[in-house]
């Protein structure tokens, strides 16, 4: 993914507009975590098929945009390619057919499909429940389900400064281009990029100093005001009631 698109993906702060936006971010985060944890334990065909169906249903309900979602699924498939190719060829068992003289085992193919379904169900569910809420809501939700406040605040502050450094980086790269720099595979390019990186580290350290002092000047003593959580409403309670039913159904399909 290009840098610009990444920076935009993180800063689309007012994106919490889909049909799922009515549900409290804490409930959505808890739902995603429990679903993904259970998903890691599923092996049987009916349970995995149901999990994938649930993921697709939630993704459609959340109105995930089609093309970016497909692109995201493709990116994950990149990691899986090796596994999917090697498993059917290396796991012993009765051969289904042979490919370039290598036997393709039924057991290996089954394992490959299990992984493919599990990974895609996970990516879809995480995209539907979490990617739509924006970073600041996510930070509050993290704290709301028991992650230490210092980590949630660090997350929030980091996201804030990614925008700043992305600008800085783009500016330095523009300046390099203006002087005729084109990145290639040679010593000069690597030296220039190394120096660029060193320069960014230096500037970030200087800015870190200024930020720390500015926060001190405004009375920061290492603690932020606590995150504000809204009370759970009817729709949240309904969601929190329905979600365990889904999890129990999946567990029943797997273990019964």
């Amino acid at each position, binding site marked *: 993914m290009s*840098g610009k698109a*990444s920076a935009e*993906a*993180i800063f689309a702060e007012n994106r919490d507009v889909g049909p799922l936006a009515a549900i409290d971010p804490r409930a959505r985060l808890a739902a995603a*975590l429990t679903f*993904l*944890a259970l*998903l*890691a*334990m599923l092996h049987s065909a009916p349970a995995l098929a149901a999990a994938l169906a649930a993921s697709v249903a939630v993704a459609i309900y959340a109105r995930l945009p089609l093309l970016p979602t497909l692109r*995201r*699924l493709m*990116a994950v498939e990149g990691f*899986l390619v090796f*596994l999917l190719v*090697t*498993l059917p060829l290396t796991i012993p068992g009765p051969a289904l057919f042979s490919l370039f003289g290598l036997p393709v085992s039924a057991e290996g193919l089954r394992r490959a499909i299990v*992984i493919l379904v*599990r990974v895609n*169900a*996970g*990516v879809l569910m*995480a995209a539907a429940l*979490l*990617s739509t809420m924006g*970073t600041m809501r*996510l930070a509050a939700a993290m704290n709301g389900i028991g992650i*230490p406040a210092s*980590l949630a*605040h*660090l997350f929030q*502050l*980091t996201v*804030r*400064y*990614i925008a700043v*450094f*992305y600008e800085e*980086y783009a500016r330095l790269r523009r300046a390099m281009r203006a002087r005729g720099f084109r*990145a*290639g*595979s040679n010593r000069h*390019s*690597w030296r220039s990029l190394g120096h660029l*990186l*060193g*320069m*960014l*580290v*230096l500037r*970030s*350290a200087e800015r*870190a*100093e200024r*930020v*720390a002092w500015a*926060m001190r000047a405004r009375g*920061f*003593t*290492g603690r932020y005001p606590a995150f504000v959580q809204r009370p759970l409403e009817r729709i949240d309670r309904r969601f929190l009631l329905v979600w365990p039913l889904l999890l129990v159904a999946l567990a029943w399909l797997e273990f019964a």
Partner: protein
Amino acid sequence: MAHIPDGILSIPVLAGGAVVTAVSLGIALKRLDEDSLPRVAVVAALFFVASLINVSIGPTSVHLLLSGLMGLVLGWAAVPAVFVGLVLQAIFFGFGGVTTLGVNTMNIALPGILWAFLFSPVIADATPRRAAFVGAAVAALSVASTAVMVALVLTLSDTAYTISARIVLISYGPLLVGEAVITGFACAFLARVSPEMLWARHRRGGKIAVS
């Protein structure tokens, strides 16, 4: 390739990684004081942006991991920095997973911290030339350790992954070279311009490192 998605690893491996990361996050967060929280956030943001830099190595190109440089500059604070970066990558770009956050943070952050700590006496008072070689060594060793840990985590999850794990191991080659070269030049630059970023008197690590 260091970003393992959800749904591949076994439960014991996931749990093990989560415990290791939780403990190291606990250690790192306990050492953050009121001044270092904003500092770490600012530098973590920089490393996130820097990992978007594309470096051409021969016919391929790689995105940097920068775990070695993070270990040198941030010390223990590299754990929350990597963790936050991985959360953003997993949730907003779909690289890596949510249940694998523990394993991935462990694989990327811990080698950088360990090697930076071991090499910190050598980089103190170093000439730019020596800083370059030490930085390159720390970066190369960190990437190599990460590659071995990723392969190990895959193999421990399921012995059927062994062949894939070996392919993954080889695929780290270009990244290792790129990291070593770029980190080397960056360390030479820092040693010349602002050596206190890499080392500080009376302690291990640099000016803003949490050690």
